[in-house]
Every structure is written in C-alpha cells, then in structure tokens.
C-alpha cells in the first residue's frame, strides 16, 4: 500500500504471523501480548460489555491461529487487518442486539451497561490523534464540528444514527446528513491526498 508507512512494529507482527502459520506457540503468545490491548480497547469501547468484547477477541485469535498463513502482507498491515475484523464483528453484534431488543426496551436510557476507564481523550480528539500522517489530520481537522463529532462517536463508540441524535441532542435528519456529508468530505480530501486507492 502506497500511503501507509510501514513501521518496525508492523514488520515484527508480520514476522510473528508467519511463525504462527507454522504452529509456533511462542510467536502466538507474543502476538497476543502485542496486539490484544489495542484490540480490546477498540472492542470494549464499541460494545461496553467485557464478556462480549472478550468473546469477539477469543474468536479473532482462534482465527489468527488457524489462518495466519492467509494474511497477505501486501494488502494491509497486521494490526489494521485484525482491527478491521474485530470492529466488524463488534458492529455486527451491536446492530443485531438493537434489532433483538427494539421491541423490548420501552424505558431505554442512555446509560451504558459498562463504564469505560475514563479516557483522557474524547472521541473527537482520538479522531485527530489517530490520523498520524499530516494530510489525514488535515482532512479530519477540516470537518465542521458537528460532522466531526458525529463521525467520531459512531466510529469509536459504535453509536447508531438514533443514538447520535439523542447524544448530540439534534434531530435525526440533521445527524444523518452530518454523517453523510462528513464522510463525503473526508473521502474527497483523503483521496486527493492519495490515502486510499481502489483496487
């Protein structure tokens, strides 16, 4: 990938993955040590449910052990690859949960089932801090306050449109258009900066 600079950490993780593909248990343990706090941080913020987040990680690492050989170095960095998988599973579960409980929770409130350790950064700050490369940071920074906050809360905490509307105390239509316009703007800015290519 042209845009993402490969780091020592990625090279080390890719090396561990190729040893895991050969059944190296020590490499698997090291890979777990190096990646699980990041993945758990991502999963727990979205699900707010430690047993559910642990279960998603459990499946992810069982898959790493069995499929480390199918990881393609050329396509993405190991942690990006794994984070994408974990985020997807968390979102699948979160959205499915909403579908299951939609008729049950007459008195649903905003209180999360689990309190996260208080973060020193807000989701909007994470959005900026996460964009390591300068042009990505510029693109995120260029978003208006509303869209920026909506995208950050959706991305890091898995909020749906209606949760965003409640949390930000804005009409649903406003929030939906913030998300849509924010993503469009982010896309054209990032693509101009050469951040993602269509394959």
């Amino acid at each position, binding site marked *: 990938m042209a845009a*993402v600079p490969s780091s020592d950490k990625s090279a080390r993780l890719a090396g561990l993955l190729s040893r895991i593909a050969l059944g190296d248990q020590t490499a698997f343990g090291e890979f777990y040590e190096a990646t699980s706090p990041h993945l758990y941080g991502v999963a727990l913020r*979205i699900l707010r449910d430690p047993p559910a987040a642990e279960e998603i990680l459990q499946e992810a690492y069982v898959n790493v052990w069995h499929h480390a050989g199918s990881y393609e170095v050329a396509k993405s960095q190991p942690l990006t690859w794994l*984070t994408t998988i974990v985020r997807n599973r968390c979102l699948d579960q979160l959205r499915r949960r909403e579908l299951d409980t939609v008729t049950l929770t007459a008195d649903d409130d905003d209180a999360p089932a689990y309190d996260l350790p208080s973060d020193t950064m807000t989701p909007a700050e994470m959005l900026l801090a996460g*964009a390591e490369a300068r042009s990505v940071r510029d693109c995120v920074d260029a978003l208006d306050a509303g869209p920026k906050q909506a995208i950050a809360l*959706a991305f890091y905490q898995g909020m*749906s449109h209606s949760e965003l509307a409640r949390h930000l105390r804005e009409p649903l239509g406003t929030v939906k258009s913030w*998300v*849509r316009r924010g993503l469009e703007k982010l*896309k054209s800015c990032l693509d101009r900066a050469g*951040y993602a290519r269509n394959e």
Partner: protein
Amino acid sequence: MNLSRPDRLPRLDALAAEYVLGTLPSRARMRLARIARTDTVVAGAIRTWEQRLALLTEAVPPITPSPRLWRVIALRLGLEPVRPAAAGPWWSRLAFWRGFALASFTAALALGVTMLTQAPERADQPIVVVLAGPDAKPALLATMSRGDRLLTVKTVGGAPVPPDKSLELWMLPDGSPPRSLGVIPATGVGRLMLPALPDVALARVPALAVSLEQAGGSRTGAPQGPVLYTGAVQRMY
C-alpha cells in the same frame, strides 16, 4: 437491486462508508455484507473505506484484557496455557518448558501418527453431528472444528424442555460409560469445551447423545433421565 451498476456507484459508496463507520442499521448491514461475499465491486467499495478509516483506530487508548481471555484461547486451541511474554525471561520458565514437553509427549502418544499426516489448513475443517430423536427429525446440531476444543450446540427442532428440567450432552465412548460434556440451553445456541481437541476427544466416540435431566444436569455423573436425541460422529479420517 444491483448495487454494482455504474449509475448506482454513488449510492454504493455511501452505503459502504456507513457500513465501515458502523451506522448502517442491522438489516441493511447484513444485506450489504451478504452481497459483498459474491460481488467484487461491492467488496472493493467496502475495502477502500476500510483503508480510508483504518488510520483512525491508531489512537484508541489500549485496555489490557483479563488474563482469563488468554487462558480460554489457549485452552480452546489445546496450547500450553502460559502467557510467554508475561512469565519473565526464558530461563525462569524451565518449569513451563518441562510441563510443555510432557504435554506434547502425551498428546503425541494420544494422536499417534495422525498428527504427522494432518494438514494444517484443515485445522478449521468443521465437524457436524446431527442429533435426532426416534422420528429422525434433527433436534440439535453440534459443531466443532478440528483445531478447536469449543463445541457449539444449536437447537433446530425437538420438543420443548419443561422448566424444571435440563438437557445434558454426553459422549458415548466405545466400551465405556457415557461421559458428560455439560448442560446445554433448552433453546438457541450453547458453547461447551471438549476435554481435548476433537481428534483426541472423539477418537473412540462413535456417537453423542442428549438426555433429559433434572434442572442443572445429572448429579451422579451418569445419565439419569431418558435419552432424547442421538447422533453419529462421522469418522474424520
């Protein structure tokens, strides 16, 4: 709806963006994921968005999961449940290596020659046991993978379970008494841990069975109630 038609690309791109962001509602989310499995244009739109947003996860503050998580993963995969990096320098871990050598030796004995011939890419090859009653209609599916001690049971039929009773799953080994795998939920999906990886645990087990027990399962270690369902374990090699 054919999303990959050129005139619908802007619509596809918007859907892919909200899929990756996470704001797509459940049904739309599942539908798009299903289409992406066969439609490379749709899959490509999603992957491009994943790459765009991937950098944003870098700053998420890490949270160390409970040590229990690694133990469960190691247990499922039949690995030595010691966390190498947390255990200090290698020379302080002689006990670990000794234990490990012994465990591998025992496992090798149990596996015999099959270990040498087992292709690693078949580690997640599914093993499915269909459990049915006398009417031959499937009541439960028990699913495992070769490289994983986790067994998943799913109710697909069968009679309702009275509230004061429990279903219990048993291995029926050749020439020895039934061995309990644990109580399974009356409906839906349950997860149990096999005593070893399937190749070992089921090596001499031609069948699984489900009995109806008092709530919480048999207290004696042997089935007390009637056997409701049985299913043959297909030979794996």
